[in-house]
């Protein structure tokens, strides 16, 4: 009944009919939602409950189906685990650094290349190609790129400078991974910014240019303020994706380099699959869930305020 277009009110008769019959009744609406909601409840709701129960239980692979409630020992174990905090710190730094770098480079590319791309849209394709390749596959590819004997990067560094750093050792692995992630996902930020930039009406820019604004001033005082919502959203999306990183880190270093590249996702994966510490892994999952809930809640409130 929300969908009465103005035209309808001109015809009294049809209007009566419309009030009687909404396009989709409430019951029908619920029915159409049921398959999706049911599926999500089964595959996410049920696991969430299992998580909560197991996180306050003593459980091993042998007693998987009969967990014994044991209070918050798992949480205490996780929160006292130095590995947990170092992996949380890794994820946080990784998320912030990669999101910042991706947004800065992406913003520059979007504005600087816009005149080129608006005339030849097909140039977008090679810029978007990295987004189409699996991050795990890209991680594997960098094993080749950075390999000390087979990789071209160490080869050329030796050729030109006589020395090449060990990209994946304990001192450099973090930086290497930040660069790898940034190079693959800058196109995403770039794409969002380019779309937002293209959506700014040309006459706004022309008017300020007639008023004597330099190109730099136009970007600073016209374009950037108009693109601000997109900047915030892109940063958050990239931060979240960087924070939960798994694929490319796992494929490139395992959690190798002396555990210096264990992200939170990898921490949980290893606690479960390598150590068999189910309670710990599950408790860490719940902590991660709470953390992402808080971040998302903040983001939604931010978005809600903007709409108003």
């Amino acid at each position, binding site marked *: 009944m929300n969908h009465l277009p103005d035209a309808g009110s001109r015809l009294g008769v049809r209007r009566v009919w419309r009030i009687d019959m909404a396009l989709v009744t409430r019951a029908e609406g619920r029915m159409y939602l049921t398959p999706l909601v049911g599926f999500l409840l089964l595959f996410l709701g049920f696991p969430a409950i299992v998580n909560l129960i197991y996180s306050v239980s003593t459980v091993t692979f042998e007693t998987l189906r009969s967990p014994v409630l044991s209070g918050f020992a798992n949480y205490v174990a996780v929160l006292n685990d130095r590995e947990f905090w170092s992996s949380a710190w890794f994820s946080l730094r990784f998320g912030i650094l990669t999101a910042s770098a991706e947004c800065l480079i992406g913003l520059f590319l979007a504005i600087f290349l816009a005149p080129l791309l608006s005339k030849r849209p097909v140039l977008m394709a090679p810029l978007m190609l990295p987004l189409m390749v699996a991050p795990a596959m890209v991680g594997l590819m960098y094993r080749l790129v950075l390999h000390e004997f087979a990789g071209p990067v160490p080869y050329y560094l030796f050729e030109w400078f006589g020395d090449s750093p060990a990209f994946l050792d304990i001192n450099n692995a973090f930086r290497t991974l930040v660069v790898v992630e940034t190079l693959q996902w800058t196109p995403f930020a770039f794409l969002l910014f380019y779309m937002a930039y293209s959506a700014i009406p040309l006459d706004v820019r022309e008017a300020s240019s007639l008023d004597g604004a330099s190109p730099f001033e136009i970007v600073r005082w016209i374009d950037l303020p108009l693109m601000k919502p*997109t900047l915030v959203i892109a940063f958050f999306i990239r931060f979240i994706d960087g924070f939960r990183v798994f694929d490319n880190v796992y494929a490139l270093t395992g959690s190798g380099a002396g555990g210096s590249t264990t992200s939170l996702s990898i921490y949980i994966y290893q606690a479960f699959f390598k150590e068999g510490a189910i309670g710990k892994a599950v408790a860490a999952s719940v902590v991660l869930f709470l953390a992402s809930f808080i971040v998302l809640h903040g983001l939604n409130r931010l978005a809600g305020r903007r709409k108003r």
Partner: protein
Amino acid sequence: MVRALRWIVFAIAVLAMNFPIIVTLITSLKSQRELSTNPGLWISQPTLDNYLEVLTQTSRFNIYAYLLNSTVAALIGTGLAIVLAFPAAYAIARSEAGKRLVLPIVINLRAVPLIIFAIPLYMMYQWLGLLDTRIGLGLILTIVNAPLALVILVNAISDVPVELDEAAKVDGASSLQVMMMIVRPVIRPALVTTFIFGFITAWNEFLFGLMLTTSRAVPMTVGASFFFAASGGGVKWGTASAVMMLGALPPALLGLVMYRQISGSMTAGAVKG
């Protein structure tokens, strides 16, 4: 002058961001012998031997199996996501149902680290006998794809004039008929985009492939790493590169052909998320 600079920046950006792909392509075209002496970016004698080896010697690692597993699981994960999301999107776009709870929750799902659910899902799969099956992997990929499918389809249906629905309704169509026979054909392009985008996402998924499969249902992203397991004389970079190129080809081709639609749906998901 500035124009030349733009071209230079463009070239550097493309080269830097696609560098691993370029290196892998070059390496895959080098012969075994050349690989041991020439790690550089040129090829003195290009050869397809590596691809031939990967595609013919399948006794140890069968690339066809990985490709088939990825294809089947991605098709299930994309098709089912659309089947579930389309009616839900119709309800959300055309009635009050789902606007306040379902839509926001599903959108936020995109940003939740899915590893949170991985461990109970692993146990659940063990009970249900879905571990190491394509169907099991496909069902998980449905979860991965559902949020974006819902957002894209809600946007698409909202853009369809309500008058179209109403006209059909006047002629006596039920809402199910309107949905399937009026709205579905009109938003066909959005359904295609959702499908392509979902297929690429599903194909590229790694975490659940790694956790939930061991041998029979291993997808390409996981299978590719098997070729890196040192076999006596270390990694055979030529064949490993050929495998990576073949594994990256389907989503890359789809993406290059459909880049325009995909860029649209990426921004749609982002703006609403």
